[in-house]
């Protein structure tokens, strides 16, 4: 599955900030951690702040911290902020033909499975898996 860059940055930022909701990280710190564009990340963080998932401090030293609910927020909640919803996708040329329609049904099946997977994984579960992997890797 290919995610848009903004979606990937959104997932990185939310998960990193949700590791410790009391911690504040600047855009520069987050960008450096994931080796991504600070300019692009700043825009993504504003979207996340509008959704109430993070809160940004003011001024040059102001950073972001997680303000959502780790157990209630799923990966799909973040993906949905940046990717078009299944019903809002623009129609592709040829979709009205029999072959185009059949192809679209296969793609929809894949989308449904991907969405169910993303909707089933909370930030809490994701972070637990992350720490398990880190622990296993450090042995």
């Amino acid at each position, binding site marked *: 599955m290919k995610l848009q860059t903004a979606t990937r940055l959104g997932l990185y930022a939310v998960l990193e900030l949700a590791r410790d909701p009391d911690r504040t990280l600047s855009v520069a710190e987050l960008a450096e951690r994931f080796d991504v564009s600070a300019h692009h990340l700043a825009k993504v963080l504003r979207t996340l702040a509008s959704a109430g998932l993070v809160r940004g401090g003011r001024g040059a030293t102001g950073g972001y911290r997680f303000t959502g609910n780790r157990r209630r927020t799923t990966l799909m909640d973040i993906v949905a902020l940046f990717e078009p919803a299944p019903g809002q996708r623009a129609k592709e040329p040829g979709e009205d033909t029999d072959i185009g329609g059949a192809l679209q049904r296969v793609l929809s099946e894949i989308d449904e*499975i991907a969405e169910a*997977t993303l*909707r*089933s994984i*909370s930030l809490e579960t994701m972070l637990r898996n992350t720490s398990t992997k880190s622990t296993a890797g450090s042995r």
Partner: protein
Amino acid sequence: MFALRSAEPADLPAISALDARLTGEAKAAYWQGMLQQYAGGPPSRHFLVAETPNGQVAGFIVGEVRAWEFGQPAAGWVFAIQVDPKLRLKGAGSALFQALCGKFREQGVRRVRTLVDRKDNLILSFFRAQGMTAGPSLQLDKDLQ
């Protein structure tokens, strides 16, 4: 908070009522059959109950070790898990799942698997939180006209 034990025939009314409340479909005969086959059945079959200190059934889980179903080597299958909504988020479901996995391990299997409705986000999230991920199989369906 919850005590775990093997299910008994006397649990039928509580199990059947809990399932009917959660699924909206009463199927006492099915649960009676499941209790007969899985509670006190062969050692590969397990039907566990979580109960509150006052003896109320808080939830249950049913599973079995099966080999070569759909070409897969031996694995523990979880067929059903239900927890009373009023007693959720207190660890009953996790305790039942962990206990069943323990039973599977004792029988030498190293994989546990289940089938979940992909629109049932609650149960999908539960199994995800237990560390389960997509398995090697795809379930396929077809309407029979």
